């Protein structure tokens, strides 16, 4: 038995796939690679393959993570060599590491994601003079209460302000700077970058999601102000 943690990038070609589609795609790629995947027991066995933190549909990503279990010893190099050429355009493996069998799952570890949003609307878009005060205004808020529906169908009020760790601007190739966000996600609550965009004090015409290109730069374990790469947690030898 062995467990591999892998890192991958999602390009423009595949950014519209859902989490489930992407999981199925990896599953079939692994079947083509003929590596000995481990399956759950029972009448309807599933491969023990999980991708961390669903990527918003429409977003590209630089460093996503997944965990997979094998029935035999499979090393990171062998994994990368076997699976790389089984992936369609738009999906690239950028690294792999051995993980202890009993180490916590990615879902239990990853609690933060960084995003960038790039203006891609037809018009000139909001310049720095518009965006900077809008971001500041949002960060100055003490709380942001939103209504959310729980799995059982109840509506609860949640303060999403604590889930916004950082919101900054970076220069881009156009007059509209990139908006970069560090947000909480996972079991303890989270907020989507589109929801943050919606919070900004901007002209409503600038807010529709399709006017912004969303890119997830990375997934992290965020602990006391420090960002830890999921490879470092329980990861041993890293190949890439």
């Amino acid at each position, binding site marked *: 038995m062995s467990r591999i943690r892998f890192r991958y990038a999602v390009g423009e070609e595949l950014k519209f*796939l859902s989490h489930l589609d992407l999981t199925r795609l990896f599953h*079939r790629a692994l079947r083509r690679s003929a590596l000995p995947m481990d399956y759950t027991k029972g009448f309807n066995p599933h491969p023990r393959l999980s991708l961390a933190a669903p990527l918003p*549909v429409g977003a590209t990503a630089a460093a996503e993570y997944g965990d997979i279990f094998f029935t035999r010893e499979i090393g990171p190099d062998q994994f990368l060599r076997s699976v790389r050429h089984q992936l*369609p355009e738009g999906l690239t493996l950028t690294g792999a590491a051995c993980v202890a069998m009993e180490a916590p799952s990615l879902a239990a570890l990853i609690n933060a994601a960084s995003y960038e949003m790039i203006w891609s609307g037809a018009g000139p878009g909001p310049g720095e003079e518009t965006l900077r005060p809008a971001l500041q205004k949002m960060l100055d808020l003490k709380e942001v209460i939103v209504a959310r529906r729980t799995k059982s169908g109840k509506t609860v009020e949640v303060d999403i302000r604590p889930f916004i760790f950082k919101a900054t601007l970076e220069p881009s190739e156009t007059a509209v700077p990139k908006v970069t966000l560090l947000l909480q996600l996972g079991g303890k609550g989270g907020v989507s970058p589109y929801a943050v965009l919606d919070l900004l004090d901007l002209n409503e015409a600038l807010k529709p999601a399709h006017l912004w290109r969303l890119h997830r730069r990375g997934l992290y374990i965020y602990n006391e102000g420090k960002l830890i790469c999921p490879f470092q947690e329980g990861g041993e030898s890293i190949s890439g």
Partner: protein
Amino acid sequence: MLSLEKKLQFLLPRVQKPARYLGNEWNAIKKDHRSVQVRMALLFPDLYEVGMSNLGLKILYEVVNRRQDALLERAFAPAVDMEELMRREKVPLFSLESKVPLRSFDLIGFSLQYELSYTNVLNMLDLAGVPLYSSQRGEEDPLVVGGGPCVFNPEPLAPFFDLFLLGDGEEALPELLDRWIAMRRQNFSRREMLAELANVPGFYIPSFYKPVYSEGRFSGIKRLYEKAPPVVAKRFVADLNSVPYPVAPIVSHIPAVHDRAVIELFRGCARGCRFCQAGVIYRPVRRRSPENIKNIARQTLQATGYEEMSLSSLSSSDYPRVDNLVKELEEESAGRRVKYSLPSLRLDSFSVKLADQVHQGRRGSLTFAPEAATARLRRVIGKNISEADLFCATGDAVRAGWQAFKLYFMIGLPTETDDDVKAIASLCRKLVDRLRQEHRIRPRLSVSVSTFVPKAHTPFQWEPQIPLPLILKRQKLLQESFKSLRTVSLSWHDAASSFLEAVFARGDRTLAPLLERAWRSGCRFDGWSDHFSFDRWCDAFRDLNLRAELYANRRFNYGDPLPWDHLDSGTAKSTLIKEHMRAMEAAIEPEGAEGAKSL
């Protein structure tokens, strides 16, 4: 001007399932358009998920793309939300592989599987910017070709197509491309090309034939070009083992309706159910050899990574020694977690054993198609199974662990009476009671009832569909008779859409303007209950002063000229007449002979 691909980037985030329009799937083939001599687009007039399940599409994709001098790219009907955006943003219909407008292809092929997708055909031509009517197309426009089961009566679509290809495409399509390349080299005009193609077996050029009507009724077909054959015979591949098979089919990003690998065990069917069009047009029965099947299975699983493989055909338990074949396939893929499935199982003990073999502990529901509930009516349609077969097969299945069954029936079959309809519920009750008493289980039974649609080239082609009010009445009768059968879930097909299907299945060219009118008034995806609007269709009929009943509910006489008489399915009209007569004799045969007729 933004490039098409760039424009798509703005469109896709706003539609429901953008993955339908991405292309770039595993095993998709993208060639340089300048590297080939002929470029063809294959259009499927339904959603991506439906079209990607179609075996014919996979086969043609392979047959063309394996050639160095040709390419074939796909397009599907955009969902209504996507269509709206495309029209607003002036994005023409494009191919998934190269994202180029379909207008720029040399040939456009439509896969015609279902009458209720005809408005989508017009819509796709329009979205592609290709003139709707063959007569309006110029030298620069692509040649519009149709194939698939519907071309055995393509008359309602005739003016929109330049060419129909009758029968199997594995040899006929490459031949079309060869000829196209040669003719293009010699600078043939469009008209010269069609004239040349008219002589090729299986190629039907509708513009060379003109229907004649007397007193508003179809009375025969006149040839406008003396070299066009009086009757066009279908093409068929003599040996399936000698033609290419798609062993590396495209693995769609989002699940297709049938999200699995497919092996066609054989083409055709030896059963001869009298309502079944597939049973006639895919004749004769041609089998793939077990060796070929095993090779295909091995290569397909390797190339796709699929976890399931369907052993497909019109009646899979009829493949000789199919149990042995399944066993060998399972042995070969042992340890690789491949599930096999067998659609279209016969109603007998052998088939249950077979299902038990492939399902290995997984117990979903088992599907059988008795089609009719009385022995008399089953004799009429040529479905030679008995009640005893049904009880025996379900009993075996229960012993093997199944508790859920799906049964398919039809209403509106020729000679049907109200009693035949009520018998569906009685039969189900008998079955439930029996399984309860003999096997001490409460079976879950779901019953699906469709309405008979008479199809061209079948022994029932002369028969009318029962009138729409009678369909509704019998569906009501059905519901009432099932009321006391609470444990059985009953579903039935929409009556109006079956009626419309019957209109087009036996219609003639007078329906072409109607199709255009209905499409212009907004009809699309008529096979989908959430889009189908019968009111719009009724308006279109009224506007054009046509009566739908004259198409769906007309009884033809043996001597009447039929709109598809100039198309030869390979089965002679005299044979169909004989079969039809036999059906009518069976309708009045005394009861009691059933046991002897079971298989």
